[in-house]
């Protein structure tokens, strides 16, 4: 009856996944999670810097939330696999967002290496969510490889440029039998709303929330926009027309 989002054997009400990077303080994160209603939260892995005392971000993430560590920093499949396993050992569970990037200007993902990493990690029992360019053939191979979803970019990471790849994302939605999660580049709630209206299954947002003047309010805004877009998709929008069509009865009494 309810419209639930199935991902990796979980069924969730929320279709907004949020990232935890770029916050001025990790202490802000509980509020962001609460306002966003997110049930899946991305994190990353990093070398400890012994010279600076830092918080442990996991202390700020409620138990019921599904962690989604990413492989940020990986430049090829083997590095991604290594990071995935470390994240698992660090207690993040068996979900992993594959992110293999060797281009530092636009941070665009490498489809080949992503597929290799996905194959290996699926075999090792991971729930694999690969971050990709909106390329149909890459998505098809990931489907074959057992990915739990594909996560095409809307625009370069952190650019806030919006759903610039709508032409190609719509094709993934049409052709790929996996959840489509639009990840990267969504800068405003209307962008996420549009993605959901088109039939995307979820959105992943980090910079647009973390970089807002008021991140808590922005998290709530994205949550509502994602719901709005999903409900509009389910409600079945009417057709567009080139001409006008009166919404009030025009057959007037005025002669």
């Amino acid at each position: 009856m309810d419209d639930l989002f199935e991902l990796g054997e979980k069924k969730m009400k929320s279709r907004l996944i949020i990232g935890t990077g770029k916050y001025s303080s990790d202490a802000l994160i509980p509020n962001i999670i609460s306002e966003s209603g997110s049930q899946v939260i991305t994190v990353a892995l990093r070398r400890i810097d012994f010279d600076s005392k830092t918080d442990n971000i996991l202390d700020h993430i409620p138990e019921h939330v599904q962690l989604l560590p990413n492989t940020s920093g990986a430049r090829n499949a083997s590095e991604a696999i290594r990071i995935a396993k470390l994240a698992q050992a660090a207690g993040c569970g068996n979900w992993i967002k594959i992110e293999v990037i060797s281009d530092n200007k636009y941070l665009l993902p490498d489809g080949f290496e992503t597929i290799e990493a996905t194959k290996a990690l699926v075999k090792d029992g991971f729930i694999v969510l690969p971050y990709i360019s909106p390329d149909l053939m890459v998505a098809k191979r990931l489907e074959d490889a057992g990915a739990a979803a594909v996560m095409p970019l809307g625009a370069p990471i952190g650019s806030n440029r919006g759903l610039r790849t709508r032409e190609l994302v719509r094709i993934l939605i049409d052709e790929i039998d996996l959840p489509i999660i639009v990840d990267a580049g969504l800068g405003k709630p209307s962008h996420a709303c549009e993605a959901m209206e088109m039939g995307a299954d979820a959105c992943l947002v980090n910079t647009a929330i973390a970089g807002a003047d008021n991140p808590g309010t922005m998290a709530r805004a994205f949550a509502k926009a994602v719901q709005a877009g999903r409900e509009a998709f389910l409600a079945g929008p009417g057709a567009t027309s080139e001409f006008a069509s009166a919404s009030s009865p025009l057959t007037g009494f005025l002669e």
Partner: protein
Amino acid sequence: MGIIITVNGKKETIEENTRISDFLASKKLNPDKVVVEYNQDILNRENFENSVLWENDVLEILRIVGGG
């Protein structure tokens, strides 16, 4: 006499017979909040007490941080 190991890419001199659990304690790190790669292998937490560091060992000590 100390031995030299590599931790997170930097050389460091420690005492002989230091266990990994000792090393973490010396850095005031909670073993439950880190993940340790020991000479390229992931080390389970239950083995922190058993593992003794030797000359030229390579440690990566990592933690979970915010990411997108």
